[in-house]
């Protein structure tokens, strides 16, 4: 097993053990989505229309829950020093932890999203667009969130600063993700899914390097 796979496996294990962030994010996602019809009423056509947007916003918020501890927990208990002294580069550390975050939040959210879409009366033929947009877009959420988590690593209560950093950067993901679902509802072709894919690829490729630079900076302070 490579060093990268070892760290990835450890982080997945930590997130899925008792007290881990995976179930927490999933429960939060389900709760927020369930709450929406109570707030805006049960008019079926309205709910179907906003379902994509609601699911996307809830998914982004649920992702944030697990993000602030992504590097901070390792920083506080000394694990990050040990990782920095291991054969794994900072880029490798960032990539492994971002991947583990996606596997334990983005992916499970994507998998349960059709069940919650049912609650919001989303027409069945838009399910593919919904699942595809979440599958393509959530890696970007983990990647950009990982960069912000690395930046706010040494700040006490950095978890409060993190959403302020991350949410503006994730605006394109929400626009294109929800846009792809709406396009399917309206039966039009607007290319949102392709823009989402392009954004996601760029974010995932660049994030480990930016996060690594932030880790270097924070650790040598």
């Amino acid at each position, binding site marked *: 097993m490579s060093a990268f796979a*070892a760290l990835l496996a*450890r982080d997945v294990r930590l997130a899925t053990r008792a007290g881990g962030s995976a179930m927490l994010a999933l429960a939060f996602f389900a709760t927020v989505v369930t709450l929406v019809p109570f707030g805006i009423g049960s008019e079926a056509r309205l709910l179907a229309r906003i379902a994509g947007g609601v699911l996307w916003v809830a998914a982004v918020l649920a992702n944030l829950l697990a993000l602030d501890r992504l590097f901070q927990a390792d920083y506080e208990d000394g694990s990050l020093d*040990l990782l920095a002294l291991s054969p794994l580069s900072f880029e490798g550390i960032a990539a492994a932890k971002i991947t583990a975050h996606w596997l334990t939040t983005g992916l499970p959210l994507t998998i349960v999203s059709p069940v919650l879409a049912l609650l919001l009366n989303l027409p069945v033929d838009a399910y593919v667009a919904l699942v595809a947009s979440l599958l393509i877009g959530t890696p970007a959420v983990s990647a950009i969130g990982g960069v912000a988590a690395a930046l706010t690593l040494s700040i006490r209560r950095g978890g409060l600063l993190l959403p302020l950093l991350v949410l503006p950067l994730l605006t394109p993901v929400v626009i294109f993700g929800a846009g792809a679902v709406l396009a399917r509802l309206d039966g039009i072709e607007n290319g949102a899914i392709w823009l989402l894919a392009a954004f996601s690829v760029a974010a995932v490729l660049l994030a480990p390097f930016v996060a690594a630079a932030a880790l270097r900076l924070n650790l*040598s302070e």
Partner: protein
Amino acid sequence: MGAHLPQIDLLDVTDLACLRGGRSVFRSVSFRLCGGDVLIVEGPNGSGKTSLLRLLAGLLVPAAGTISISTEGTQIADREEHRAFTGWLGHHDGVKPQLTPRETLQFFAQLHRTAAKDISLLLEAVGLTGAADFPCQYLSAGQKRRLALARLILCSRPLWLLDEPLASLDASGKSLLLEFLRDHLAAGGIAVIATHDPLDIGAARLHLA
């Protein structure tokens, strides 16, 4: 145990200075250590003992001065490369409460690509056999320290940097640490130890004011 790095022939520290938060912590620190040498760093709280260890590990950037590691005739001055030589026993144990001691050591063995077969022996050596499969959140501070010690052995690095290694260890834990330290030095390793406690070992001393 595991992939051995070449031993360090000479650790040469010249005119080292450290700034923390814009404040000068120490300056003009110089020393040379050869394989088998141990240096004990003393000084009051805030005198920069931990900072010196972090500098030697390559985790901090020195404000001035150089740290150079000579091994097999080549000199390595690059900070990032120094990390590969460092065995770290820090102030924090770096132990995850959700993982068991066995899982913790297995993870570090995989991370460092060393043989995982000796883990049971290692757990026995540090007296954690009985606690090997319980989550680390149930371990005492001294047991976590013993686990950190086992990890130090597992990673088998030539330069040991130990920050208050005796903290929370009982008498048998302390003699265990000394035993490991003597083995490490006998094998040509180097150790730099920041401590307030007297250590029963012949060592050079560096006093930070």
